[in-house]
């Protein structure tokens, strides 16, 4: 676990030692871990979400919907605070060939309305995201599922069209919350679930009030009596409210005020390494990017350390032109890190038969905070390499329809995925292969890894794929960004804090407690 400003364990997230020193905050000895305590009201503010948000998990996106969804409901599997896959409503799962998966459901779990959990509910909940008519945002994740069948009330059998060893990970996605089927056979989307809280009031874009479910099946979880989730999109207002004690936690803290916020003894800042990363994607099928030397020149032309320092204020880690973050399984730390090297960039340009290169890179500030700054810095870095990088600022509205995958060189951003296969399958093959990347070997490895159940062999395969993307891929990936958020000191959490999303993997409501 990493906690900003405290002793850090060395290992795959050891990079953080550097960034903490950079900010110049003193390292406070970690206090002895307290035990979870029941009671209190937890008021937290999130910045993502709007008035039109619904409780339908097929439409879920953004902190408001996800956090409320997970307070009300559970998935079959979850990513634990230790970033490992854990059973949730499923007790266990098994597969011989990674094609047929049998999930055994937890017994004695009831929904808020008293209905016991059965395989029927699971199937109906997951079918929400399948089929022609589904408009679910997670439709593609279940595209490989051929059938879902019940084996009695306690078991669900998934048959996939092709093997996928990561299938249990997929089911931990926030879309796949389990809801009860009503008497009329319709899925209950009103907020009834098996989760640690029941819905008191739901005013999207304003405030959601949750009450603890006294019959929650999970041990030591759902500690607060009441939870108020506020939507505050103005970070200044949120910060003020946190400092004046009107709220207990904020979804994201602005880098610029961290220094000042850190001086407040009542406030604790968390900086958790995550998988969010921007990409500078080149259309590899078009000149000049069709020549891998040009792609390499652009990869050597960026000073990643400088970007982490200046754009992320140290709250992040340098990336290596592949999307597998240090917090993800199968990340290979032994792969050599690409460094800023204008000479090498020049060399590759020469190899491509060019003296200099002039390209324009599209970017919009709506992608992530500091996106334009990052590209502007990149432009400066690339000058010594003989690359004239023009910064093209695009409007935020319509960026994804008019710029993304339409321009030949553009900035994009990707959220965290629990396993490498998901990001590979989404962003490096298929419809959203934003850099038009094509490699036979990569494709073969990706498919083979899905059916490989031997962990060591799989690790090697994913390592090879990371190398391929690093050396041949069409995307420059400069860094992975940390989740930076803050809480009042009297709100506490366990030793580990999940890295898949902000606020303890969006499960702070269930995992944290008030001292």
């Amino acid at each position, binding site marked *: 676990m990493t906690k900003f400003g405290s002793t850090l364990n060395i290992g795959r997230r050891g990079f953080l030692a550097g960034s903490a020193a950079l900010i110049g905050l003193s390292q406070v000895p970690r206090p002895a871990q307290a035990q979870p305590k029941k009671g209190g009201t937890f008021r937290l503010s999130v910045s993502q979400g709007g*008035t039109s948000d*619904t409780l339908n998990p097929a439409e879920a996106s953004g902190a408001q919907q996800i956090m409320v969804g997970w307070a009300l409901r559970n998935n079959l599997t979850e990513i634990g605070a230790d970033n490992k896959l854990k059973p949730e409503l499923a007790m266990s799962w098994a597969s011989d060939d990674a094609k047929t998966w049998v999930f055994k459901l937890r017994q004695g779990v009831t929904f808020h309305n008293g209905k016991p959990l059965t395989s029927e509910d699971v199937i109906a909940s997951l079918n929400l995201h399948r089929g022609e*008519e589904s*408009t679910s945002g997670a439709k593609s994740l279940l595209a490989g599922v051929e059938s879902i069948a019940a084996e009695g009330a306690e078991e669900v059998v998934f048959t996939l069209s092709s093997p996928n060893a990561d299938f249990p990970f997929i089911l931990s996605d926030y879309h796949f919350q389990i809801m009860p089927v009503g008497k009329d056979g319709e899925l209950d989307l009103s907020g009834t679930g098996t989760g640690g809280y029941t819905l008191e009031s739901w005013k999207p*874009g304003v*405030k959601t009030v949750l009450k603890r479910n006294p019959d929650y099946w999970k041990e030591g979880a759902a500690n607060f009596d009441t939870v108020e989730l506020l939507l505050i*999109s103005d970070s200044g207002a949120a910060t003020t409210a946190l400092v004046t004690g*009107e709220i207990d936690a904020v979804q994201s803290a602005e880098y610029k005020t961290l220094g000042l916020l850190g001086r407040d003894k009542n406030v604790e800042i968390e900086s958790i390494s995550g998988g969010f990363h921007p990409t500078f994607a080149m259309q590899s099928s078009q000149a000049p990017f069709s020549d891998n030397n040009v792609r390499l020149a652009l990869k050597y032309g960026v000073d990643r350390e400088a970007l982490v320092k200046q754009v992320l204020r140290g709250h992040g880690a340098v990336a290596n032109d592949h999307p597998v973050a240090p917090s993800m399984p199968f990340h290979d730390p032994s792969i050599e890190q690409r460094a800023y090297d204008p000479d090498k960039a020049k060399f590759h340009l020469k190899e491509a038969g060019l003296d200099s290169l002039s390209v324009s890179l599209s970017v919009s500030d709506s992608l992530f905070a500091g996106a334009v700054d990052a590209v502007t810095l990149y432009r400066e870095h690339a000058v010594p390499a003989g690359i004239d990088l023009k910064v093209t600022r695009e409007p935020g509205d319509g960026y994804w329809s008019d710029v993304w995958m339409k321009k030949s060189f553009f900035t994009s951003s990707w959220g965290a995925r629990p396993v490498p296969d998901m990001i590979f399958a989404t962003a490096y093959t298929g419809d959203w292969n934003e850099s038009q990347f094509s490699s036979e070997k990569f494709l073969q490895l990706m498919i083979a890894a899905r059916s490989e159940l031997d962990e060591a062999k799989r690790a090697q395969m994913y390592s090879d794929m990371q190398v391929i993307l690093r050396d041949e891929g069409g995307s420059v990936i400069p860094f992975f960004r940390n989740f930076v958020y803050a809480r009042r000191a009297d709100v506490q959490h366990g030793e580990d804090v999940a890295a898949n999303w902000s606020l303890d993997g969006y499960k702070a409501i269930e995992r944290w407690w008030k001292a």
Partner: protein
Amino acid sequence: MHYLIKLFIQRLALGLLTLFVVSLVIFLSIELLPGDVAQQVLGQSATPENLAAFRRELGLDQPAHSRYLEWLGGFLQGDLGNSLISGIPIWDLISERLYNTFFLAGFAALISVPLAVLLGVVAALYRDTLLDKSINVATLTAISVPEFFVGYILVWLFAVELGLFPSIANLSDDASLSDRLYRTFLPALTLTLIVTAHMMRMTRASLINLLALPYIEMARLKGASQRRLIVIHALPNAIAPIVTVIAINLAYLIVGVVIVEVVFVYPGMGQLLVDSVAKRDFTVVQTSCLLFSATYILFNLASDLISIASNPRLLHRK
């Protein structure tokens, strides 16, 4: 009185026509916005099939004029329709925010209108004295600074430094009236500071304009004191301009408070509208804009009627 009713009906009809044109303008504006609701909702998961399915579901594949007519038909039958994005009936979506907006506006109006008229009368009464000049400079300053400046200053003073009032207006459903007033005090005060100046200055200016008229001189020559002159003889004749400016400011309190909502995280209509524009939620934008325009038109109508009622020349024709 027959003439008044005729006038009222005329104005009302004109107001309805204006509303109709407003709805057309808003509809066309939204049509012109880049991207549509489907793209906004689906974001990165917008595959062509998904988009098509989503659009079909919302009826966005229909031509523009038939969508407009359908919306208009529903609206005329009192059916505000559903939010395109969430499918929630718009009334459910906005009713509470509308209430909040009116509550805050009403709160601010209750403080500011009497205060403004009183200050205006006092300033006119003690015209060109130090008191008048101080009121003038103070209100001029209040009208001249940006709303967010006023808001932040109040937050800094009352929330951060003194800890008297909360910095955000976190309302709960079951809050008592006093709690509500306590929590909305800072935003209401901000609005008060902003609108009072305008109304006070108009009150003062109309009174002073009247002071030059022969009938005021006549009253003075009949021996009226300065106070009686202003309150009894001048004020009834200044009702029309004062009410007009009050109407404008009340309308502003209701439609123009987005910035105050942002500063105090107040769940009113402004933020909803800004969100809905960003999300291209046409039905919500359309309905809210119409409600706002209707409010504006109604306030103007009311102020016209009050002006007429306060003027015997118009009320009792020869």
